[in-house]
């Protein structure tokens, strides 16, 4: 589904290379996890895939079901079915969460040639999904992420994902800031979406999330590259020994 080949990325503002040849393929129906030390380029990879400004792709490619992602605007990538749950969800004062969600859902439906949801249909849908993530009506009414706790912001990301039903979901440290119960809720939200036509790329530092969302493949990223790929046991190894041994072995 997601195919990344030799992706090289530098910052636009300064001459600094961050991704140094990332190769990664995520198949439909699978969950891949990426772990790696701070600053290794995990968020950069997710931003570049989602289309954030400020990065320059100097080499390589990224496609989603064969469509070249790197040529598209962020909204076009979203319409193709890409979704990024942000490591740091953005607060937008003055834009109501509901308005935001509805505009997003209908924009994507429109882009795919589907009927827009009317207010009543939308409300019913959002209420049901919000309830399963324990997001109350008050949070839906407030401006996007404004005044949300860290954990509430992460749950709000998953709510957006549940509403948009993307086929390629990238979760950047969605577990950070979540308490144990919230982590379960989020994992349930993700697991509910798991199906054959959908894939996940889960960026995390901790095994704990992977206890709930069982990955098929685990990658280790270091200094802008995927340096090791393995099964779920790789995450356990990181949990026990840190990155020292793995990085020493590939050096």
């Amino acid at each position, binding site marked *: 589904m997601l195919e990344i080949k030799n992706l090289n990325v530098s910052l636009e503002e300064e001459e600094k290379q961050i991704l140094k040849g990332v190769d990664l393929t995520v198949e439909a129906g699978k969950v891949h996890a990426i772990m790696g030390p701070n600053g290794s380029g995990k968020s950069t990879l997710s931003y570049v895939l989602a*289309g954030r*400004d400020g990065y320059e792709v100097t080499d390589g490619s990224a496609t989603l079901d064969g469509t070249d992602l790197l040529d598209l605007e962020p*909204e076009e990538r979203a319409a193709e079915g890409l979704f990024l749950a942000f490591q740091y*969800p953005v607060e937008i*004062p003055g*834009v109501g969460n509901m308005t935001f969600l509805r505009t*997003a859902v209908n924009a994507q439906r429109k882009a795919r040639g589907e009927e827009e949801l009317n207010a009543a249909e939308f409300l019913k849908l959002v209420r049901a999904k919000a309830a399963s993530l324990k997001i109350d009506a008050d949070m839906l009414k407030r401006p996007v992420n404004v005044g949300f706790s860290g954990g509430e912001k992460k749950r709000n990301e998953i709510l957006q994902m549940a509403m948009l039903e993307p086929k390629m979901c990238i979760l950047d440290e969605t577990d950070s800031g979540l308490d144990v119960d919230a982590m379960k809720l989020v994992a349930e939200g993700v697991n509910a979406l798991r199906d054959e036509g959908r894939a996940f790329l889960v960026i995390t530092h901790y095994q704990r999330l992977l206890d709930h969302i069982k990955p098929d493949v685990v990658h280790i990223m270091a200094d802008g590259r995927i340096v090791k790929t393995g099964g779920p046991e790789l995450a356990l190894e990181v949990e026990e020994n840190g990155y020292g041994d793995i990085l020493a072995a590939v050096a």
Partner: protein
Amino acid sequence: MGLALEKDDPVAALVDRLSRDGTDGGWAAEARSAALSRLAGMGLPGRRDEYWKFTNPAPLTAAAAADVAAMPDETADVFAEATPLRLVFVDGRFDADASDALALDGLEIETLATAQAADIHWARDVYGVLEAAGQSPVERPLAALNSAVARDGIVIRATGQVTRPVQFHHRHTAASADCAVHHVIRVEEGAALTVLETGAAAARFNKVMEVEVADTGRFNHVRIQGRDRERLAATHLFARLEAESAFKSFTLTVNGALTRNECVIELTGDDATAHVAGACIGEGDFHHDDTVFITHDAVNCESRQVFKKVLKSGATGVFQGKILVQPDAQKTDGYQISQGLLLDDDSQFLAKPELEIYADDVVCSHGSTCGAVDETSLFYLTSRGISKEDATDMLVLAFVDEAIQEIEDDALADVIRAQLAGWLDRRRG
């Protein structure tokens, strides 16, 4: 006219152009000639006046104004849900046939011409009086000009809780319309009144509204200016607020080659509040100037100024806002914020925020910012599939909402939001 002016004097030329025949009772003749001598004493504003540093007054003071194609009448009914008493002005002239009957529970209402024709009238204590008081410490000659010539306008004395708003609706039909309109309002003790203003008025529009609010009175004002692109407008809102009164004025402006909205408020009674807010959106040949002067002259009063300007393709936004706190105005709470949102590099926002404080026990703050659309917010919205244009509009609406929130009545605020969203939509075609 009562005062001799040189024939080629630009003041005389303007007075001549804007004057209309009418009957003046004793008080009106006096007020008019007093205004004329004020004007003659001051002369017209020029480019070198400090108060006009950011806005070139020439088009407003020229002997003639360029024609402006008439606008379709599109805002007459925007406030229909509030069931206003609608009074219609066509090219600056009151049109009784197109208007509702001049009668409403809780107020006395008549045309300015009727009041002027009377020999004795309560309006003598307000007409040209608040304007004259507002000439110091800064001169506002275009307002004196208006007092000297105006024959059209509405005179209202609110004596109770007026449940329906009064709407002044303007229609612009003649391309050459160049006019002066003057409203006089007194809100008596304990009374409440809401005034709405809508419609494109004229090629060049000079408007004055004088509002006196007695103890515990409440006055709310919501105005929509636009969408006529080439119009010139100079408006003045003068208010005098007595004890425990509350005053709120909000203006939404879309388009306009040159708009200068001045608001001059004096808080003369203890515990009074004054909120003035504005949101404007313009692109290209758009120059919008909000000039506000609030004087605190009593104890424990509160004032707020909230102005937001969205500018694009060479548009200019100006804000001059002053809070003057007189020596006895202790416990003053003054707040002022002006912000420009530049949608490209060609536009500019010029701000001159000023505090002048002579009392020691006061809380006053002011801030002014100018910036582009927040890239991170834009990315967040577009990453959810919202187009860049829609996302920008959402952020524009969010930006101006702080000003819209100053509107007292939530339903009226929602009308403004809807109107603005509609206009943004339309602009994109």
